[in-house]
């Protein structure tokens, strides 16, 4: 361990940290519990103030490239000890248990970053650090004017960072749309904004956003004990809102009538045609070929023979006409 207490980010301390990291030897296994415990040892001072007396938001980054075990124990540890801190999980490669990482981060208003390739680590971590440097709105809550809390999903709203929208789905009866108050802290100061829905136009698909958010939340907190119940709830939501979920899928059914007169069908054998160009050499396929062109050949042969005889006679000048012509000349 580098230090049991948080250190100020001075150049000297950064050098010490770099040397500590360089001396680390990986020996397999991901023990998350000691790391979490060590990082949160001063939970009681979570609402610490900095040197200038401003309250600080503590952000813990958990980065691993290994699989994480004993998840239930870790959930308990995180919810007990993390208090008002934020946990950001970063998984590198395919080994980390992304379900656990996402759920652990969402429980305490953090985010989960999955990094597929080693080459992307630098970019993704820089993006994450740039983002979490600038929390704009923290401890976001929603309530009606009369103080009651609407039914909203996701039930824990993450902090709002620079250039990010606030995205919450609320379900309420359409006749009783009351103004909603969004509250939070900006730089330690209380902030609130009233939202009126009077001039909003109805839009399609908003109910699907709500259902999707609820399904995501249900599945986030699914465990072995609640599994069957969560599956049923997800199935019911999927059926009601016509969504593709882990329990439901869309099936296309062709309702085009294939035969509109199916009650008056006629059974008949249709002659099976051979593929174009296929010669049937098999005698069993057709009746025996019981005709030859013999008479045609005989006709042609005798015709040619007759022509030949006529030609011979013509050459010999024995045709009747020729004899007559010759006699006339003489």
């Amino acid at each position, binding site marked *: 361990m580098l230090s049991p207490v948080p250190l100020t980010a001075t150049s000297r301390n950064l050098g010490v940290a770099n040397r500590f990291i360089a001396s680390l030897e990986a020996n397999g296994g991901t023990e998350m519990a000691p790391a979490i415990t060590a990082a949160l040892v001063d939970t009681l001072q979570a609402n610490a103030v900095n040197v200038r007396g401003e309250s600080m938001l503590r952000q813990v980054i958990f980065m691993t490239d290994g699989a994480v075990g004993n998840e239930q124990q870790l959930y308990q540890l995180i919810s007990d000890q993390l208090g008002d801190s934020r946990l950001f999980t970063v998984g590198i490669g395919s080994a980390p248990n992304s379900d656990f990482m996402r759920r652990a981060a969402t429980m305490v208003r953090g985010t989960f970053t999955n990094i597929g390739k080693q080459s992307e680590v630098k970019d993704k971590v820089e993006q994450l650090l740039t983002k979490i440097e600038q929390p704009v709105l923290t401890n976001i809550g929603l309530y009606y004017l009369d103080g009651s809390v609407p039914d909203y999903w996701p039930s824990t709203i993450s902090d709002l960072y620079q250039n990010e929208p606030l995205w919450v789905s609320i379900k309420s009866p359409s006749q009783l749309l009351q103004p909603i108050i969004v509250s939070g802290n900006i730089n330690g100061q209380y902030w609130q904004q009233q939202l009126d829905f009077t001039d909003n136009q109805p839009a399609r698909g908003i109910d699907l956003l709500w259902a999707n958010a609820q399904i995501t939340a249900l599945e986030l907190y699914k465990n072995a004990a609640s599994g069957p119940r969560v599956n049923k709830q997800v199935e019911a939501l999927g059926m009601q809102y016509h969504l593709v979920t882990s329990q439901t899928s869309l099936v296309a059914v062709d309702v085009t009538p294939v035969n509109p007169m199916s009650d008056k069908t006629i059974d008949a054998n249709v*002659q099976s045609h051979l593929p174009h160009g296929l010669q049937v050499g098999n*005698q*069993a*396929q*057709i*009746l*025996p*070929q*019981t*005709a*030859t*062109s*013999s*008479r*045609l*050949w*005989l*006709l042609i042969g005798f015709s040619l023979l007759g022509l030949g005889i006529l030609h011979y006679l013509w050459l010999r000048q024995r045709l009747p006409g020729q004899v007559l012509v010759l006699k006339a000349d003489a």
Partner: protein
Amino acid sequence: MQAKAHFAQFLIERAFEQTLVDNQPHKPWSWADTHPVAKMRLLQTHAQGTQALGSDLYVLAGASGRNLAFGYSLMLGGAGVGEQGNTIIAGHRDSHFMRLQYVNVGDMIELYSATGKLQVYQITATQVVHETATEVLNQTENSQLTLITCYPFDQLSGNAEYRYIVEAKPMV
């Protein structure tokens, strides 16, 4: 081919006579790959009685194009001569079976098997079918004689698409 069809019958007749004597198949000529299995005679029925239509002709085993050039041919897929079932005999329309165009329903057909046994058939039907209508070759429970030749009879070219079928039932 006409001459071949005519003169081969003399050689085939000689072989069939030998077969009748010793009951062994004989080749009509030494390089032949077939042998005569029956002798067939068509009898035309007149008001005055019956009269043979043309001369007696012999039936060779196997309806290949080569055998058909020499005489009638028995289709080996059908029943043998004198056996139970559908006996199928094919012949060329421009030589031996040219006479089929003169037969009528009710005429007789005499068929002598290689053992010299005589079976008389009476023609029950004639029909024209397409060459793919192989159902006329199907086996039947009762004895039947089916004669096949090409149709129409006076066509000159050899690529006939239709077949003239003569069906005959044995007379008891």
